[in-house]
């Protein structure tokens, strides 16, 4: 791998991971709210199913995703029929793999963030004439903001480090699907220790920045 391709890999990884984090944000927030506030049968089961990628071997998740996003999988076939584009072994597969693997972290952070909003405030806002939307955007969301931002950062950091699911669904195609983790693996396999060290340092710097941002946001007080 050439040094200039290192920055291509970094840019590709950060861009794809940012995009996948953005994609999982709406369902993560909505399902987090549902799990925090909803009282319905099967709630615990739903959370367990949605959290499976957190505990399953990433390769197992990757295999399931490959079967679903391939040309014969229901999602892959539907996507290709609708858009004319393939998913498996393209950058879109990297988005799917990193998004699915990062989703549970975002979901759990969102659920906790919504549970920590003082329960009295929303009913009182309603008595002041606020609609459900206004209550959500003026009371619930601002008070859950810190936890949500922290969850977004953690999900992004998890996506950056994704390897097992990505290599199965997207392969390791230089210039097309190679992420930082895959590039480190490739550098080690080809005996390019110097490149592996450089990639590890970049990965460590990105992970450090993400975790530092998360910690800083956790400690940040409300402007009370």
């Amino acid at each position, binding site marked *: 791998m050439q040094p200039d391709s290192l920055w291509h890999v970094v840019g590709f990884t950060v861009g794809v991971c940012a995009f996948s984090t953005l994609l999982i944000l709406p369902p993560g927030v909505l399902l987090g709210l549902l799990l925090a506030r909803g009282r319905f049968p099967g709630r615990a089961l739903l959370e367990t199913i949605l959290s499976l990628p957190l505990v399953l071997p990433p390769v197992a998740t990757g295999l399931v995703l490959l079967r679903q996003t391939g040309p014969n999988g229901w999602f892959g076939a539907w996507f290709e029929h609708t858009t004319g584009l393939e998913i498996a072994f393209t950058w879109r597969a990297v988005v799917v793999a990193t998004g699915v693997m990062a989703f549970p972290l975002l979901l759990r952070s969102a659920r906790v963030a919504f549970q920590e909003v003082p329960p*009295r405030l929303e*009913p*009182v*806002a309603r*008595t*002041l*004439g*606020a609609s459900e939307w206004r209550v959500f955007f003026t009371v619930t969301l601002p*008070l859950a903001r810190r936890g949500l931002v922290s969850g977004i950062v953690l999900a992004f950091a998890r996506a950056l480090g994704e390897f097992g699911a990505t290599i199965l669904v997207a392969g390791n195609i230089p210039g097309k699907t190679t992420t930082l983790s895959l590039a480190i693996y490739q550098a080690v396999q080809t005996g390019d220790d110097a490149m592996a060290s450089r990639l590890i340092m970049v990965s460590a710097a990105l992970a450090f920045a993400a975790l530092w941002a998360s910690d800083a946001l956790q400690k940040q007080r409300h402007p*009370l």
Partner: protein
Amino acid sequence: MKIRVTELQVPLGASSLAVTYEFTQPITAVFGASGAGKTAFLEVLAGVRRPSAGRIELDGWVVFDAATRVDVPSRRRGLGYVPQDLALFPHRSVRDNLHYARPSPAPADLAFVDHVVAVLEIGALLDRMPARLSGGEKQRVALGRALLARPRLLLLDEPLASLDASLRERTLALLGRVHQEFGMPMLYVTHDPQEVVTLCHDVVVFEAGRVARHGPPAALFERTSTPVWQLRSQASG
């Protein structure tokens, strides 16, 4: 303002609340010991808690009727609810808390805002955050926020509970002034007979989720040898 509550049933864990009563006086106290169901009753009126049965009318307007499945949402009931913990929005300044019900007030509303701010003496607090307020200041801001929604009735849940003795006296006088200035009827939850006798025209005594007695405060309470009020032993109503 007339509130008619008919055969209201509210499950409260192991016990329940069962109330039939017509509130007609300008300021009515809902009096009783802790656990008597006073707060739950106020929450039901505000639309924050759902009863299992019964009917609630506000000046003839049915806001809840289990039989016909009428349940007007709390945002449409027009009742100013001030819970015991006040529930000020911690991320919004006093000004933004006050303007929550009317974020874009019409020119006519601005005069009303000024009037409320002046009566409650909270003009100097407008740019502060709720965490920077004392207990009495928070109480006045919560009252102002409810008033600025222009409710038809104020529901106050133990508004003096967290205040010290001197502040209780001042706030009690302020509530009387709010009632006079704005002609605002109030339902006032308390377990302090002194507050009932000083402020209220009618008192409804709750015991174990039931209306045990009711009537004018002076008829229900008597002053003991020490300057303390207690319920007369003879029940009325």
